[in-house]
């Protein structure tokens, strides 16, 4: 399991902070939220302590509403601003993404999904779950009841390599047991039911 995304939120309203948690949960994001509802004098220190990658800021809590984005401590971080119609352009313009305080659900999801994807914070779902030729070959032997040792000998590869292939097969197919793989192999005509050992 990869470690969750750490998000720092600087926002006075409890409801808004809780709302972000709900939003990110609904988006299926794995995250940990650090919160502050007090005015911030030293943003750099706060971010460093939280180890956050994404910082959601309501600029009214910043002593200095303009963030020095050139600061090395801020490189690689994502800043999202919680703004309203009175927020001036200089403040709005410095953020990687802005969220109007009255934004609806679908807009919020779109904004953050876009942001996460651009910054590689969420993985694109892999469509290429097809087994490679080698994997299909190994699956065939597994389904026929061969042990990892026997497969290794047949294909002149180490048991360790066989195990790696099997792990990848299970990951790609979402099938963990040998009998499950056998059913898959028959359904996909990789083996014939008659070929099974003992038949």
């Amino acid at each position, binding site marked *: 399991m990869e470690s969750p995304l750490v998000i720092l939120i600087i926002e006075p309203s409890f409801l808004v902070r809780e709302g972000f948690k709900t939003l990110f949960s609904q988006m299926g994001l794995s995250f940990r939220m650090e919160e502050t509802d007090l005015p911030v004098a030293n943003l750099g220190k706060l971010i460093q302590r939280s180890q956050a990658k994404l910082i959601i800021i309501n600029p009214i809590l910043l002593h200095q509403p303009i963030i020095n984005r050139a600061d090395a401590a801020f490189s690689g971080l994502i800043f999202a601003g919680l703004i309203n119609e009175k927020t001036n352009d200089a403040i709005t313009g410095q953020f990687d993404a802005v969220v109007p305080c009255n934004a609806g659900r679908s807009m919020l999801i779109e904004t953050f999904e876009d942001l996460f994807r651009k910054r590689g914070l969420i993985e694109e779902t892999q469509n290429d779950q097809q087994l490679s030729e080698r994997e299909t070959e190994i699956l065939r032997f597994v389904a026929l009841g061969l042990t990892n040792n026997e497969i290794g000998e047949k294909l002149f590869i180490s048991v360790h390599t066989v195990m790696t292939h099997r792990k990848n097969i299970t990951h790609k197919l979402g099938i*963990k047991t040998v009998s499950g793989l056998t*059913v898959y192999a028959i*359904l996909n005509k990789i083996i014939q039911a008659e070929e099974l050992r003992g038949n």
Partner: protein
Amino acid sequence: MHITKDMKMVDVVHLNHHLIHIIHRFGIQLGFGEKTTAELCLEYGIDLPFFLEVLNTYHDSAYFPLHNLQQFGAGQLVNYLKRTHQDYLEHRIPEIEELLNCLMERPDLDGESRRLLADFFQQYKTELTNHIQNEEGIVYPYVLALERYTRTGSASDLEYLQSLQYSIRKYEEEHDDVEEKLFDLKNIIIKYIPKPKDSRLLNRILHELFELEADLNNHAHMEDLILVPIVEQMERKLSAINPA
């Protein structure tokens, strides 16, 4: 939101309808009226705190009934777990089998796929039955003997325990892929069977498999988080009195 003694049973079911199986497992029948969990437990002679802990662990997988651990004997827990087993073997598994039998008689899927699914489920059933027999034949008798001994301190119980040469550690180490087979069966139906002419019956089967899986997960959760710690505690007491 946790389930409390003052909640009406009807509200418990509205909160999480999956709990009807658990409520039934305690012997409580429908027609709750306005009665609270406490009132119904009294009526049916059920230990209320235990009932609530079971419902809450099921309802919220993050719920950890640590503070109430001590008040339940292992016996009560084992009884509940046995009732769960009984429920699987006598009701849930046969219900799925019945659906699979219906599937066998219908042209929704080609003959080979139907047979593969039915065979795979039979394999799963055999494994689950073996798993249950192991728990009821070895693990639970050991736990009950241990509990009896910590209460009575009788020499014959001690002798029996020592003759078993068992420890709950062994149980924790034993791995079986009962859960994995169920996981596979779901994915095979969802992803890999040739497109059925009609998926409704298969959808019902899937639904039952998901329900069974959630129940089994909770069962394992109770064993790992409640039963094992209680037994370990008793084992520590035992070895303190009778160092090997």
